[in-house]
């Protein structure tokens, strides 16, 4: 009965590769997010998306792109991976009108 799930949990890859991280929520929420937790442990918003609009944090490189096949999924595609992309990526979701976001378990990405 996992509310927000992410796959894979761990991802090790080489520089220059393209990879995807999947996120699914079974809460019936309307808005989904991607956050990055870097080596300094800050959790920072990357994207938010509902069926109406995608909002991108201006600091996110355009190598990162979210894709939403349906309301319950928001996947993160990363092209041409760089060493600095190594981090933990968290997916979250929120019900429209609510303020609380619910987080997935995280995907630990290591770029070698």
């Amino acid at each position: 009965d996992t509310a927000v799930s992410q796959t894979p949990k761990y991802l090790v890859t080489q520089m220059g590769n393209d990879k995807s991280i999947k996120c699914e929520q079974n809460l019936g929420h309307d808005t989904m997010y991607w956050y990055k937790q870097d080596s300094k442990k800050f959790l920072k918003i990357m994207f938010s998306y509902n069926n109406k609009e995608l909002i991108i944090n201006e600091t996110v490189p355009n190598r990162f792109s979210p894709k939403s096949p349906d309301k319950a999924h928001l996947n993160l595609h990363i092209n041409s991976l760089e060493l600095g992309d190594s981090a933990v990526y968290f997916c979250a979701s929120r019900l429209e009108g609510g303020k609380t976001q619910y987080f997935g378990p995280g995907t630990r990405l290591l770029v070698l």
Partner: protein
Amino acid sequence: DQQVKQNSPSLSVQEGRISILNCDYTNSMFDYFLWYKKYPAEGPTFLISISSIKDKNEDGRFTVFLNKSAKHLSLHIVPSQPGDSAVYFCAASKPGGGADGLTFGKGTHLIIQP
């Protein structure tokens, strides 16, 4: 430019005592504040929240206090239990649909000692 600050990276408290975690913010636009608890290798778990129109919210052993004039909030846990050992993140959001996400502090690692 940290808009949400948790100035204590770690806090050690004896079991049964009160744990007080602090958080300061700089952006007056924030109108809703949340505390999340995070265990290693897991995602943040929502704990308690407070709207800017209130100054206190209580849920069981957890109470959050908000001082808007000081732009300061605190989380009180009483009595502290071993399972409370975790990293606690303070987060804030602005009015509207929350489209710009939550702004997080860096976290405080709470250690409950037996």
